[in-house]
């Protein structure tokens, strides 16, 4: 009981110094709670069961990523906290306390931090749940049913996930204290701070870092997209290792070299902040590397979201190229169908094609026929006519596809073997192309040759001008459907109000949120690190003031040191994210450069905000 009281007093008195830890942890909890709450709040239920299932699955996946992130975040935060507290609570050893007791004291104290963070995180989470859903709906451009209310399930999930992770690291801290020597406890804060100044080690690390990083970039960007996907995991590992080596080698090496050049160093506040950065580098390089990797992840997450959104738009455009399509063996059905539709709706565009049923599994269309239909349907034309023994497969837009544009696959059409050399994703035959998956383009000569041995079919496509006429027009055209040998007529109708793919928009929103979560977390880590540093620097700044340096000079030095702390990860992140986003763009057949620029600008904005806050708090804490 006495321990509990003692710990609580410690916690209460030192709350200011715990604030950054509590706030950062609360933020992670808030995000996790809000994602979970979406599943249980039924906000997306209005989109239908199938969409809801997909969205729930996505959110569960995101939650797993968030819990993993929480794991590393708590690991980092409790480590920083432990180092700080170790020196203070180490003094208790002189009061006759055993390591075990000090460890318990730490456990209780850190439990207060955890519980406060959990309560604040869930509390604010509940408070902002409605807003979060609204923003989610707005970003994904979906109609959702925002419900205010607290469901116990997301609270339980969040609390259990957080407390499990937290307990692991609280126990780790306890074990660390129990096993620590008195000396290591008292000098904990100063340990590991002196940089080993063996330049050779830095040079090896720097060279290795550059090579490993470059290998990661090359691996992620070379070859076909199948190669890129196969190499993705290795590329990610190489980039992570490379970033760590870069920060552990190249950056200290650069700073140490700069510090060695006195003509550079002895100029204004450089002498202060360059030395300060070197001094802290050994401890900080892991933080910089971590923030940098989080930044790369965030930019890639945003790019994924936008690539998915673009895919969604393309899929919707593809599916809705034509509202109604008829596939028939009747040569003159087109006019009748047009008349029937026009009786109920205006037609915005219509095309007709001829197709050959060369066997049970393949339908063949002629190059010039498709070219004409493309022009009439407002689609981009086919680049070239296939050679006589060549065919182009008419595919459709997919969310993720590894099929390359160029390949050589033998295809038997009728009794002839063709080489399939291209996969075309333009809806020349509309939704039917996706539904049937059996359309091939051949040259006009090959088409005429195949005509002799095939049944000729006719395809009529119609796009209505006003979507609200859909149901009436469908009822009208349905009278043509027939399934007899003499009269075979099939109809495809694409409901413009169909929302089966809405979940992709939510995926886009989730990616945007992941981007923001990651980048705010990156900013939080930097802020937390500098906040804690400031407490350790207090004495040093007091000395500087005592020997006559003005607050203005010291404030300028703080600003420069902290600018370096934020700029270093930002620069490495900007370069690395370019390659990761570029690789993603190549894999998804899209140009994501503008998304890359936007993401880096947002990161810069978040970092700028954190920087301003850090400088203000740092200055306040060191008293300049």
């Amino acid at each position: 009981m006495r321990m509990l009281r003692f710990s609580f007093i410690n916690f209460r008195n030192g709350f200011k110094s715990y604030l950054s830890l509590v706030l950062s942890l609360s933020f992670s909890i808030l995000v996790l709670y809000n994602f979970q709450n979406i599943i249980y709040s039924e906000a997306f239920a209005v989109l239908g069961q199938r969409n809801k299932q997909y969205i729930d699955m996505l959110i569960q996946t995101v939650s797993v990523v968030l819990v993993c992130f929480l794991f590393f975040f708590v690991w980092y935060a409790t480590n920083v906290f432990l180092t700080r507290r170790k020196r203070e609570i180490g003094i208790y050893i002189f009061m006759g306390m055993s390591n075990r007791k000090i460890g318990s004291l730490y456990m209780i104290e850190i439990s207060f931090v955890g519980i406060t963070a959990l309560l604040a995180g869930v509390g604010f989470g509940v408070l902002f749940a409605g807003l979060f859903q609204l923003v989610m709906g707005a970003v994904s451009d979906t109609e959702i049913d925002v419900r205010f209310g607290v469901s116990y399930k997301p609270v339980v999930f969040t609390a259990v996930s957080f407390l499990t992770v937290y307990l692991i690291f609280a126990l780790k801290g306890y074990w660390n204290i129990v096993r620590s020597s008195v000396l290591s406890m008292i000098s904990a804060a100063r340990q590991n701070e002196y940089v080993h100044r063996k330049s050779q080690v830095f040079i090896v690390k720097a060279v290795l870092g550059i090579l490993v990083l470059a290998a990661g970039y090359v691996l992620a960007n070379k070859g076909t997209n199948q190669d890129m996907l196969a190499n993705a995991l290795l590329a990610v590992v190489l980039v992570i290792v490379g970033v760590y080596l870069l920060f552990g080698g190249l950056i200290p090496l650069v700073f140490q070299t700069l510090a060695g050049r006195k003509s550079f160093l002895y100029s204004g506040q450089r002498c202060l902040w360059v030395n300060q950065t070197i001094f802290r580098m050994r401890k900080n390089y892991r933080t910089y590397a971590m923030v940098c990797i989080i930044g790369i992840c965030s930019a890639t997450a945003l790019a994924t979201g936008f690539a998915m959104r673009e895919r969604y738009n393309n899929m919707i455009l593809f599916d809705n190229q034509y509202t109604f399509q008829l596939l028939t063996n009747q040569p003159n059905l087109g006019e009748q169908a047009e008349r029937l539709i026009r009786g109920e709706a205006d037609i915005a565009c219509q095309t007709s094609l001829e197709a050959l049923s060369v066997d049970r599994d393949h339908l063949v269309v002629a190059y010039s026929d498709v070219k004409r239909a493309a022009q009439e349907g407002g689609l981009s034309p086919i680049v070239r006519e296939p050679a006589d023994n060549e065919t182009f497969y008419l595919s459709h837009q997919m969310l993720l596809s590894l099929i390359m544009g160029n390949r050589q696959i033998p295809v038997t059409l009728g009794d002839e073997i063709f080489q399939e050399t291209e996969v075309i994703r333009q809806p020349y035959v509309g939704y039917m192309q996706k539904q049937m998956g059996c359309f091939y383009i051949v040259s006009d000569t090959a088409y005429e040759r195949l005509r002799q041995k095939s049944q000729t079919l006719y395809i009529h496509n119609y796009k209505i001008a006003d979507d609200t006429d859909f149901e009436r027009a469908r009822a009208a055209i349905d009278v043509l459907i027939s399934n007899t040998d003499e009269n075979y007529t099939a109809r495809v109708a694409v409901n413009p109000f169909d929302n089966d793919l809405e979940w992709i928009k939510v995926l886009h929103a989730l990616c945007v949120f992941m981007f923001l979560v990651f980048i705010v977390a990156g900013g939080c880590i930097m802020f937390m690190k500098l906040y804690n540093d400031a407490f350790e620097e207090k004495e040093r700044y007091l000395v500087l003031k005592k020997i006559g340096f003005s607050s203005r000079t010291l404030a300028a030095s703080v600003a420069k040191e902290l600018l370096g702390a934020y700029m270093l990860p930002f620069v490495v992140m900007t370069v690395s994210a370019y390659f990761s986003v570029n690789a993603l763009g190549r894999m998804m057949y899209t140009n994501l450069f503008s998304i890359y620029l936007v993401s880096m600008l947002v990161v810069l904005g978040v970092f700028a905000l954190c920087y301003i806050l850090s400088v203000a708090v740092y200055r306040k804490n060191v008293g300049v």
Partner: protein
Amino acid sequence: MNDKKVVEIKNLVKSYGAKDFQTTVLKGIDLTIYKDDFIAIMGPSGSGKTTLLNILSTIDKPTQGTVMLDGKDVTRISNKELAKLRKDKIGFVFQDYNLLDTMTLQDNIALPLALDGVPARQILERIRELSAAFGIEEQLRKYPYQLSGGQKQRGAVCRALITNPEIIFADEPTGALDSKAGKDLLHCLRRVNESGQATILMVTHDPHSASYAKDVYLLSDGMMKCRIGRGSDRKEFYNRIIDLQTSIGGDFS
């Protein structure tokens, strides 16, 4: 003796506490320090030594009286001017060295000039001269944690001297050193003082340290009780300080 007044203190009073519960620590101190002086201020605990030094260092403000430093009344000038005065005219040496552990000894010494925008070549030249005078050339590339107390304190004195200040305020400079290191440091201080490079005001409780000064002032109960000059023999001066200390009494530790 040089006639140039570096510091002139007149009727210096310093009180702490609220109106009805005031404690007066300094009760009307008058002191004039001339260029090339080496003054030691001694006194028992609570006599006001540190308060006096804090006021002279412009870290604290007096309740009454004037402190003229290089012709300016430090009690009346703005904070900006005070910072400039501290930077340009005063050098500080503390008991616990106050070197920055983030940088090498050389960078510590260079810091005041670097911040002042002096060209690197001049700074390096000045460091070379001072480090040679204080015997720490070999230690310049080391970090404070790699140095002995004596080396650190000599480095701190170099840092204080690098700006060619009007006066050096030294607060118990040998307090954390062993007798050998303390003696070496005091020899160095006396040498720079005698060569005309520094006017020194040292606060100490140690009669041995004080015996290196040219004049010793005894502060007791907030007032200057007496002043004794060294003469030619340091050992005899030391004995006189001890006698004086005994006659005044109090805790000099």
